[in-house]
């Protein structure tokens, strides 16, 4: 592991998509949002899926996050197929093994920053002591030490996204999926957030999958997949990442 950069430990496959397609019905027409996409991420990966609006990147992220099911193909989590799992099993998998970061932060407005981070731990029925320790540690790690008692509306956009990142990591998941994490932030804050994700990837060796159309994001990845019209157009490895 590298505290300042990527996780270089390579492990087993974490998330895999095998020829997944997603077809939406738009009135009488059927729209293919994803067309037989293959994807693989292993432990410690930092992958960016890059593409313009309507390219199918959020659809792919939803399938990888197990909050949607493909029309065709299979999504495997830690090598196991998920298509036969019930909604309940998928929910348990999400709460235990997957962290999510949203474009619009999606914090619960009635909870404080610390309570937002604590929420997924309540679903895991952890002890109060364990919850408090993890929340304190994560808030400190994302640079929000001392702001835990603030409500989301008392935080800046960047701070809110940091809370969301802490919430995604607090359950110690195998993978964190982020949907346009910089889209609602100014460029400076966006860079800080991506730097934070890069550091957390190095620190925790958690797989990160980030979808974006922000050209400033791919340089932070190890690997970039370009998606367009529902198909992966190419894959490249990033040689020079920002310090």
């Amino acid at each position: 592991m590298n505290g300042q950069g990527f996780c270089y430990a390579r492990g087993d496959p974490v998330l895999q998509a095998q020829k997944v397609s997603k077809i939406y019905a738009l009135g009488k027409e059927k729209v293919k949002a994803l067309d037989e996409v293959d994807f693989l991420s292993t432990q410690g990966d930092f992958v960016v899926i890059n593409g313009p609006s309507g390219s199918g990147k959020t659809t792919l992220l939803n399938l990888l996050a197990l909050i949607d099911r493909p029309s065709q193909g299979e999504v495997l989590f830690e090598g196991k197929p998920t298509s036969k799992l019930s909604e309940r099993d998928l929910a348990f998998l999400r709460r235990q093994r997957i962290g999510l970061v949203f474009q619009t932060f999606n914090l619960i407005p009635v909870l404080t920053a610390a309570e937002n981070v604590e929420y997924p731990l309540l679903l895991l029925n952890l002890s109060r002591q364990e919850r408090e320790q993890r929340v304190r540690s994560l808030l400190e790690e994302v640079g929000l030490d001392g702001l835990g008692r603030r409500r989301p509306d008392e935080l800046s956009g960047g701070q809110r996204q940091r809370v969301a990142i802490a919430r995604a990591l607090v359950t110690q998941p195998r993978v964190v999926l982020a949907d346009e994490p910089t889209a609602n932030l100014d460029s400076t804050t966006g860079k800080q957030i991506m730097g934070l994700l890069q550091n957390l990837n190095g620190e925790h060796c958690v797989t990160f999958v980030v979808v974006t159309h922000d050209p400033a994001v791919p340089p932070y990845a190890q690997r970039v997949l370009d998606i367009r019209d529902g198909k992966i157009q190419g894959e490249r490895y990033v040689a020079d990442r920002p310090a």
Partner: protein
Amino acid sequence: MWRIALRNLRRNRRRTLLALAIVSLGCSLSLVVLGFVERSKALIQQTTVQQYGNIQIADRALFEGDSEGLGYLIGPEDQELLTRWVAQFPEVRGSTVQLGFSSLLTFRRRTATVRGLGVVPENPVLDYNGLVVGGRGLRSSDLGAVLVGQVLAEELGLRPGDFVNLTATTAAGALNVLPAEVVGIYRFSSAEVERSQVFVPLSLAQTLLNTRGVDRVVLGLRSLRQTWGTARKLDRGLPAQGFTLEARTWDVLSPFYRQLASFFDLLFGFLIAAVFVLVFFIVLQVLTLSFLERTREVGTLRALGTLGQEVFRLFLLEGAGLGLVGGLVGLLLGVAFSLAFNAAAIPWRPPGTVQAVTLGVDFTPLVFGVPLLVSLLSTVVSALLPAGQMARLSVVEALRTV
């Protein structure tokens, strides 16, 4: 979950306050009406027990009124056995015997049809002397004495000291007439009773009917609540003691009480139903709006791994929180209003009665429990539909909602 539910209630304060106001109003109104019904029923219970005692033991023919002649009378030996047997029950405070009869009461040239009741004067269970407002009550030493109701006294122009003739049919079927002195005038809650009921010493009634029997044994219990349990025990024990008699409780003996209690229950039932429907629809609207605004939030919770049933429970908790807070506020408001109402001591004379009673509100566990339960139930039921809809939302669709 409770934390999120309760904090969500504070989100849109105006809307929550509207819902709370409706729940509180409904709850306080229910408390006041139920408390009033309870007080009224307690007053009627009190007067009914004053009239009938707690329990009467008699032949079924007497209770049903389907006997020709006086075949239902209880002879002196059975009276003694029965009195000794019932005295063994710890709930029984005491017992007395009575003998009822139909009679003509004649004063000067005016005659009225009355129901006479021979009682043991000055007995501690039920002697009716407490009702006397003019003259005096019946005494153990009285032989030819009668207590008449004020309505009858006014109709016939009777005063204490006047003599009347009582005419009745004896057990053997002959006519018998006895003179009796009006020693006192009583008042009762019912004008009908005052018009038609007279009380005489048991000895006079037995002489008039030419019998040594009585038609019922009346029991006074230590507590009203013991009435029904004791009656069941008596009913089980009477055949074993060799009696073909039945025990009947005061509420069964008084059709008036039963009708009035049913009327009050119906009235209160309608009110509760109205409150329930009102609260249901208003809270349904409030919660539906409130839940719909949080569709995206539900998507987030579900995406984080919250189960649909946990989302359902969260929204139900919000409904329950609204019901609980509104209900508790409603109880406080209701108690405050009731205390003010009780302090005003408003008199009211119910139809068919001769004495005014003080209107008031009683506080019993039921008076607090039912309105609170209705508040909780109506808000939780209101939350069921929108909570179910939110729990079934597709995660992706919910997250797309703006």
